[in-house]
């Protein structure tokens, strides 16, 4: 039982990191109708910048710097590449983001090489003992910060002018444009925000118990795609729920590896995708996604 509760807490905390990454997918999808496969390498950039600078300027400034650089890169990608192809059919746009991902990831992976850069998180490998349970402090920090960001996010989405504009644009872009909402600016903002969230998530993603930024970080962040899809690509609540589900499932599978050994080794890595396939089989637009209805 102790193990179960520990795993649950760890899973929820990992899930909140995934939720932050999945938010980025949903934001970009809502604003521009694109599934952004370059998200993983944008996350990698943020985490890399933070990990390389933290020794000189400290952990928190480094994280801000990482978030700023990831946001800048994402906004540039939108303004200089994606904006030219607004309204093209989504498959080509998805492939386009794959092309962008290849370029960014190749460059970063070349720079990283075989090295591993620690995130320099002030908690290190400290663990907190709550009663009988042992929980890494990074995980507690990650969860608290994620909860803060996510709540701020929901409030902003609900009450701020920006949130109203976002929702209007996602519901009906043309009408929103006629009402004076600048779609291009909104889209660039969504990309930038997604990049910043990814960078913050990335820094926690590579903190303890993970050793640090290495050349596979971008690929392991891919597991946030199932999170976004399980929830439904156009639902923020969905991203949160999807992220938590993925975090829990991955952690349980890794934790109970011995009991689940008949399913093969490395179950934790593929569990997100299995859950995604099962969900899609029954709900083709995810748990909270809006179904597209065609009327003639």
């Amino acid at each position, binding site marked *: 039982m102790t193990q179960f509760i520990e795993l649950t807490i760890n899973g929820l905390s990992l899930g909140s990191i995934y939720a932050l990454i999945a938010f980025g997918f949903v934001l970009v999808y809502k604003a521009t109708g694109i599934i952004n496969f370059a998200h993983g390498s944008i996350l990698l950039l943020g985490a890399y910048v933070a990990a390389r600078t933290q020794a000189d300027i400290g952990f928190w400034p480094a994280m801000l710097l990482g978030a700023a650089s990831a946001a800048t890169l994402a906004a540039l990608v939108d303004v200089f590449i994606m904006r030219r192809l607004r309204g093209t*059919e989504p*498959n080509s746009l998805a492939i386009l983001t794959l092309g962008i991902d290849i370029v960014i990831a190749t460059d970063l992976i070349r720079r990283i090489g075989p090295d591993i850069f620690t995130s320099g998180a002030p908690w290190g490998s400290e663990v907190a003992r709550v009663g009988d349970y042992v929980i890494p402090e990074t995980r507690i920090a990650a969860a608290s910060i994620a909860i803060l960001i996510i709540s701020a996010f929901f409030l902003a989405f609900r009450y701020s002018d920006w949130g109203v504009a976002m929702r209007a644009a996602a519901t009906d872009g043309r009408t929103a444009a006629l009402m004076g909402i600048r779609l291009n600016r909104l889209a660039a903002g969504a990309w930038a925000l997604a990049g910043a969230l990814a960078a913050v998530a990335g820094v926690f993603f590579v903190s303890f118990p993970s050793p640090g930024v290495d050349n596979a970080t971008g690929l392991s962040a891919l597991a946030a795609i199932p999170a976004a899809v399980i929830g439904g690509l156009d639902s923020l609540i969905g991203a949160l729920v999807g992220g938590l589900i993925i975090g829990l499932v991955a952690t349980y599978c890794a934790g109970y590896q011995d009991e689940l050994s008949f*399913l093969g080794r490395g179950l934790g890595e593929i569990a997100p995708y299995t859950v995604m396939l099962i969900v899609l089989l029954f709900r083709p637009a995810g748990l909270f996604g809006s179904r597209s209805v065609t009327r003639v």
Partner: protein
Amino acid sequence: MSERLNSIPRAAAVGFLALAIVLALLPLTLNAFWLQTGLFSMAAAIAAIGLTILVGRAGQLSLGHAFFLAVGAYGYCYLAGGEEIPGVESPAGLELPPLLALFGAMLLAGVAGLIFSPIAGRLHGIYLGIASIGLVFLGQHIMFNAEAITGGFNGRDAVDFSLFGFSFSDGESRDDFGKLEKLWYLGLVLLALSAWVAHNIVRGRPGRALETLRDSEVAAATMGVDVHRARASAFMVSSMFAGLGGAFLALAYGRIVPETFGFVLSIEFLIIVVLGGLGSVNGAILGAIIVIGLPQVFTNYADSLPLVAESGSGGVGPTQLSRYIFGIAIIAVLLTARGGLAGITRMLRAKYAARRASPVPTPAP
């Protein structure tokens, strides 16, 4: 008969014949390195034809092509393999004749595509593309863990190809007419057959149905296209090409490991079909040659090329250089030349024809 022959432009027929002769003679001059590269290109081309039909014609993004290649590759090894070697623990197999195993592998991949069709038929647009990523990871998990069939982490050997007792494997290459040369001809035949079948699918009724489906689901349904069935069968056909390509890849490698069939391979195939021009069969073949060949060219001539560094020395290695190029090429193709290489060729040909037809003679450049 003669009418049909006349309908093919003579220049095209001559060009095709010349190409066939050149391809048939190439093994006499190429060394083992380039022969091997050629074999990989052929395998990739066969599989890419399937993907270009699926993505370009049917409008369904698939990031799961690597999975179907794996089914074909392991399918071939399983169906043809299984011979007991005393003292060596080897994965199980059915010991079928290789030709039968080759077609069996293709069918197996098609069945895998059909099994995926309850998902493929229902999902819309981008959701399908993402769902297919799941297949790749799931597939690799199975490959690593189903050791009795796949050999697990270490992979398994592919049984050499033979046809009615004629072995494709004796001779150790170069000196006599060796394994690689024979495989080259087998690959040419398989590729030609695949291209022919694909052209017929694309130009015929099914191709038109798929294109209507791509452009408007509603319109397709109104015209009597069974949307779910057409989607599912596009997936199946595409998987069969992938299966055949995968089986030939297994022959070309001689030994297959799960590592090969990862997400990166799926992306490589998307690069191939986008560079070649989405939906174009010839473009897919051309794309495969370029995407497989370019890294090999860089590797082989790393010393004499100014930009390329030895891999691991901190500079830009050959694989990395080609990845930069492919990434930028994809962006460039999608931003400026949506038709890819096939589109560019078409455009040049149209310009040439227009110049010939124009009443004012313009001096040839």
